[in-house]
Structures are given as C-alpha cells and as structure tokens.
C-alpha cells in the first residue's frame, strides 16, 4: 500500500517532467527533463519491485542508473563539441584567442 502511494507520486512527477521535456525552450531543458525522467524510471522500478515483492527489479534499476548518467554526459559532450569521439574535434584551445 505504501509503495502504491509512492508510485503514484513518482508517476505525477514523471508526467510533469514529460511536460517540461515537450515544452522546454532550449535543448538543456529537455535534457534536464530527460534526466529526471530516467531517475523517475529507476525509482518506479525499485518501488514496483517492492510492491510486488520481487526486488529483483533492483538489478534493472542499477543498470538504468549507469545508463542515465552516461546518456546525459554523452549528449552534453555532443552539444559542446559536435562530436563524441575524435581527438582532433576535441581540441579545446582552438577557439581561445
């Protein structure tokens, strides 16, 4: 029962984050909302696992935590450099006058 109430709260927060992700004026707003949606999904997984008394869902949650972090940082890096890998594109001194 207590987990059901917490799940409802997290679902409300998830809906609000989706609203921001759709409405956000800049890409950073959308990315922030996407990060929050990922966190909400992790909490939903954990709470749902506890509610149905199958806490094995936590393993999926751990995977999601790591993926969420990597995803946000990768997209940010892409915004900044326009590329994800190549060393010649990551030359930070080229713009400094």
């Amino acid at each position: 029962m207590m987990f059901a109430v917490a799940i409802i709260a997290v679902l409300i927060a998830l809906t609000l984050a989706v609203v921001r992700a759709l409405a956000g004026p800049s890409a950073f707003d959308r990315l922030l909302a996407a990060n929050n949606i990922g966190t909400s999904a992790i909490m939903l997984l954990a709470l749902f696992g506890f509610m149905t008394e199958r806490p094995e869902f936590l393993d999926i949650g751990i995977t999601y935590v790591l993926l969420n972090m990597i995803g946000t940082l990768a997209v940010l890096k892409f915004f900044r450099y326009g590329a994800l890998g190549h060393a010649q594109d990551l030359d930070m001194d080229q713009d400094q006058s």
Partner: protein
Amino acid sequence: MEPAIDLLSWAALMGGGFFYVVGAIGLNRMPDIFTRLHAVSVSETLGVGLLTLGMLLQAGFTLVAVKLVMIMVVLMWTGAVATHALARAALHDGEKPLLADKGGALMPTDPVSLFPELGVRLAAPLKSEIVEGDSPGPADAGSAESEALAEVGYGADEAEANPDAERPDSAGPDSTGKDDR
C-alpha cells in the same frame, strides 16, 4: 513486520514522494534553466534519498538493501555531476541566467560580464558569446566586475555614475518570473 518500522517506512516514502513531486513542479514553474536545475536537484537528492530509505526499512539486512544503497549512492553522485555538466554546458552555449535588476524585474544577464573570470574558466568560449569589446582578462577584472555589478543594481551609486552602461540584449522579463519577488 514491526509496526514501528512500518510507520517509519510510511513517513519516509510519503516524504520522498512529496519532495519528488515538489521537484517536478519546480521543473515546470521555474523561469530559466539554472533555476530549473536547482529545483530538480531537490527531487534527485532528498526525494530519491527518502524513497530509498523507506524501501531500505522494508528490506532489512539483505542483499536487496545493498543494491538499494548502491542505487542511492550512484544516483546522488551522478545527479550532482550531471547537474554541474548541464549548467556548464548551458553557460557555454550562451544561456543567460535571469538576475534581478534594481526594480526587482528578472532580466537575462550575461554571466561573463558579471564574473569576468568565468570567460576564462569556460574552457573554449565561443567568440560570439562573449560581450563584444570587453572580454575582460584577469588584468582589468576589478573594474569590469564593479561595472557589471552596477549594471544589475547591486551597487546603486555606481549605477547612477554611469547610467549609459547598457545591458546585454534583454528580451524583457519572462512571463513566468512575475511571482518570484
């Protein structure tokens, strides 16, 4: 399960859900990206922490508790890192934080004019994002800083001293910023 543990778990889960929803409301209500980051960090620290604490009390000393602690620690750690990276990327991209001027209206203010060392710290500043003509180096940091402070109205007498200090392009206060002050 003992009733005391259940009661504590209820309290932690309800508190966590409350702060989670508060963070999401702030994500929608706040006027610009930096204040939204501030709002979301509520749900990513206090919300996640309390929800995990509530589940921990139900789990007891098991392997499930270890996994929960792992999720909580990693979420708190990476939430801070992601928030910092987002703010830095937004600054680098030229997002101007809303700062209050003398009348209390929120104006998009160029942070590089306010904190001159920021232009140096942002590792690869795009040339178009620095205010034209005064990309202040460390040499004239003091004067540029006081001028920038006068621009946003922190030093009132200095603002009258040079009334022609123009603000960087201001698109007017955001409509959602009216209830902040």
